[in-house]
């Protein structure tokens, strides 16, 4: 074994040439799976479409890798550093089957770099509620019907996933409050406390928490996979302020790259090939025999293995199933459900203008919120007794980005401002849309619908010459009613926190970074794509280890659940399942 690799485009032991498992994608699910598999003496190849921006990620010497991320708005927010560039990989969108899909620069664009979408996230990791895993039954028991929605119970319950939640929190370095002030009264029972104490809270969090508490809500310390103390060889967060949308400059974020994937690489049993875009799985007779990718030289390469794991995000996983079966229904698609039940979170955003400066360029983007609008009973075991809509957790935030602020004035406000005798410079100095702006974002549950789906666009192709994903998606009354119900209450919280004025921003259906469904898991092959451990019903050596297997979307950030399910699925593979 020779580490670190000195071969361009490869991390890990370059002498490995036979792989037990190939993982497509190095996001939180793929990284977690890689660690479990290598711990169990399996050789793993991880293929990542994007670049590697952790110098020395596979170096066994002392010290952590050095990130090429920085608190650099131009690079991260304007120039797609480590992200999906819409000039290279566009997606198309339509709100109904009856209309033409148009190329859209941002249909849930995620990361393109080693670490995946769990690089640029601000690493919020609440658990799902116990009732989420039996939501269809709970709704039926309450007599609540939602025609057109395809709610189902998960093929596992909270108790079965709980130990994997604990492991996911430990591997990621979760900081939070499990009990007492700041804990979430709606969270379900935990067998272990958070491995790290809560973070230093940012000013906007304290301002909005004061407002929420004064109206009788229960503000919480938002759990985050960011070190609040040195942990696992990584330093504590210094609250540099460039968090959501930014890779971490000091490795205090518990991205899978620097937690699980790094351990897999250092085991000598894992290789990562980056700048390698997977174009198809090669399948015959219910078995996948190989995977084909395009490397950074533009060459097509094929690699074989015993087993394959899709962890490239729900939209790309489904796309690969279709790309791998040209002219056919799609790989593993006897149920007709591949690509269907696509879910986002409907984000309702309350915006408030404040008198004081809130300094969003300090702190972790979000350090607090409240779960009172999730719509479950305290403890999360049942739906709320009063029958209130199922919404989601609310995040407290503001705007940290000066270039974005300036461009917003230029594109949205310039002529209005001129009429009012206000110059662009006046706006930048007074900063109504950055320094004096606070937001509450509700990450509300999306109802699953089979009509919300991913397939291949018939006309638009990407830089690799492949048909791009076409997203057909419309909101269900389930989440629209929740938005209408809770939105005005969120505005009230702004007033109670001291705002001048507040309103509900336009609903952003696509800009969320949360995406689930498309390869739903279940016990019945006719009603699901994957089995209860993420293995395709129809292909015995193909698995999924990301949010694509989710049955419902809950109203909490999805990543901890992605990691927990990936750990569980990989453990099943390693132990001969």
């Amino acid at each position, binding site marked *: 074994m020779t580490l670190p690799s000195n071969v361009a485009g490869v991390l890990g032991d370059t002498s490995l040439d036979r792989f037990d498992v190939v993982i497509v994608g190095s996001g939180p699910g793929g990284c977690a799976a890689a660690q479990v598999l290598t711990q169990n003496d399996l050789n793993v190849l991880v293929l990542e479409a994007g670049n590697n921006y952790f110098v020395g990620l596979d170096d066994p010497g002392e010290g952590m890798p050095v990130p090429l*991320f920085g608190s*650099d708005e131009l690079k991260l927010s*304007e120039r797609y550093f480590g992200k999906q560039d819409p000039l290279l990989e566009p997606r198309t969108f339509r709100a109904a089957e009856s209309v033409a899909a148009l190329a859209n620069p941002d249909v849930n664009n995620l990361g393109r770099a080693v670490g995946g979408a769990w690089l640029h996230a601000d690493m919020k990791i609440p658990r799902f509620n116990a009732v989420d895993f039996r939501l269809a039954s709970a709704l039926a028991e309450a007599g609540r019907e939602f025609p057109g929605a395809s709610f189902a119970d998960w093929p596992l319950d909270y108790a079965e996933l709980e130990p994997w939640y604990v492991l996911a929190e430990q591997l990621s370095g979760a900081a939070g409050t499990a009990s007492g002030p700041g804990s979430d009264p709606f969270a379900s029972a935990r067998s272990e406390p958070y491995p790290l104490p809560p973070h230093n809270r940012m000013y906007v969090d304290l301002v909005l928490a004061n407002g929420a508490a004064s109206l009788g809500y229960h503000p919480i310390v938002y759990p985050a996979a960011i070190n609040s103390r040195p942990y696992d060889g990584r330093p504590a967060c210094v609250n540099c302020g*460039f968090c959501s949308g930014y890779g971490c400059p000091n490795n205090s974020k518990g991205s899978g790259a620097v937690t699980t994937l790094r351990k897999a690489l250092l085991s000598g049993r894992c290789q990562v090939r980056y700048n390698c875009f997977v174009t198809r799985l090669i399948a015959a007779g219910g078995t996948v025999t190989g995977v084909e990718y395009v490397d950074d030289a533009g060459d097509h390469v094929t690699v074989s293995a015993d087993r394959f794991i899709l962890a490239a995000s729900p939209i790309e996983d489904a796309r690969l199933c279709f790309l791998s079966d040209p002219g056919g229904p799609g790989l593993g698609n006897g149920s007709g459900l591949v690509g269907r039940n696509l879910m986002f979170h409907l984000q309702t955003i309350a915006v408030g203008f404040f008198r004081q400066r809130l300094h969003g360029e300090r702190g972790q983007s979000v350090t607090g919120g409240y779960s009172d609008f999730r719509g479950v009973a305290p403890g999360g075991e049942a739906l709320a007794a009063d029958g209130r809509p199922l919404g989601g957790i609310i995040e407290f935030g503001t705007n940290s980005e000066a270039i974005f602020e300036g461009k917003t004035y*230029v594109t949205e406000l310039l002529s209005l401002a001129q009429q*009012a005798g206000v110059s662009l410079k006046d706006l930048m100095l007074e900063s109504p849309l950055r320094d004096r702006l606070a937001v509450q974002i509700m990450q509300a549950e999306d109802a699953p619908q089979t009509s919300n789906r991913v397939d291949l666009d018939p006309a638009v192709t990407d830089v690799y010459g492949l048909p791009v994903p076409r997203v057909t998606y419309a909101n269900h009354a389930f989440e629209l009613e929740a938005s209408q119900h809770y939105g005005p209450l969120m505005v009230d919280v702004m007033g109670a926190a*001291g705002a*001048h004025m507040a309103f509900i921003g336009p609903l952003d259906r696509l800009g969320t970074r949360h995406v689930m469904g498309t390869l739903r898991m279940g016990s019945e092959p006719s009603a699901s794509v994957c089995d209860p451990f993420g293995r395709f019903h129809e292909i015995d050596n193909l698995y999924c280890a990301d949010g694509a297997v989710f049955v419902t979307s809950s109203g909490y950030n999805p990543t901890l659940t992605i990691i927990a399910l990936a750990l569980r699925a990989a453990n099943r593979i390693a132990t001969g399942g």
Partner: protein
Amino acid sequence: MTAIGRRQFLQWAGVAAAAVPVARLATAQESTELASAPFLSPDEYDLVRAATARVIPSDATPGALEAGVADYIQRLLTMGSSADANCDGRRSAADLIAETAAVATGGSACADADVAARGVFDEAGVLAALSAMFARFSQSPRVPPLVFAGGPFSGREPFVDAATMQPSDDFPPNSFRRFVPLNRVQAIAWKARLDGPDAAPELAGNPLVSGPQVNLRQQYRTGLALIEATSRTAFGEAFVDLTPARQSQVLANPSLASFMRVLRGHTMEGMFAAPEYGGNRDGIGWQLIGYGGDSQPLGYTLGFDEQTGEYVERADRPNSRPNPDEDCVGLSPRVLNLMRILVGNQPGFREFAAPFCFGVEP
């Protein structure tokens, strides 16, 4: 250890600083010249200066001129403009990667000569460190185009002193100025942004490649010529010779609307992006708006004091409360009124009778 350690940082990212005195690095930073002949002619450059000065004027406080916004735009438009930087006989996205190419081994003769002639990154230590660092994760040692500044730290803020939990006087070297190489497909995207769809045939299947942020060089060439022509038609004078009021009148001409959207957006980038991209000279844009810019490795939480059970914050720029000298005066009446006009018809709009500032002493 509350921050990334200086020793391990030097081990990986700061090899250059270990070999080159920090003072010399600072000099090199200021002298990051353009990588090839400037795209904007002297007349065009002056026009960009004058036009961006109307977007953010200089008055009691600095504006686009002092921030060097025109230099930012010049650098954006100049990168990758060599016709055939990799000497393969054709103009392609690969030229963008090779444009400032080839230090040490691995580069073509023509690219080596280019680098020497330009005198860019002429510090031997920096070049050697770049080679060593980028060889670890890129195909060949090369100085990349100026799309993605490096990381993790700019050297504008120091490490924290772990013992006192206060800022130390130990500053990391500036790794922002070591730009990150593009991979193959990123180079294609940037070729399209700079030179349009024809320069990136790989993107022919994507309708977005004809959008507004693409083909920037042509947009500038055409847009600047149109500003000049509009000025001469309206006032019989060159744009740069007009009074500021007349310049603003010219720029408001509807025929310039789409170009002005691009120019105003780039003005914001040149005002507030990290100085390594060529604008925001000495952080002047950030100072103008009281913005912290990049704060690593110091950040805003300096440690956790086990004795008091509290986080230690910076006195001047705290994380969990307002600045000590800040008041609760709020937005001016006319900006407040503008916001009322902007959002007053949004769903759920409410105005509150008694706004207040939580945590600010009256």
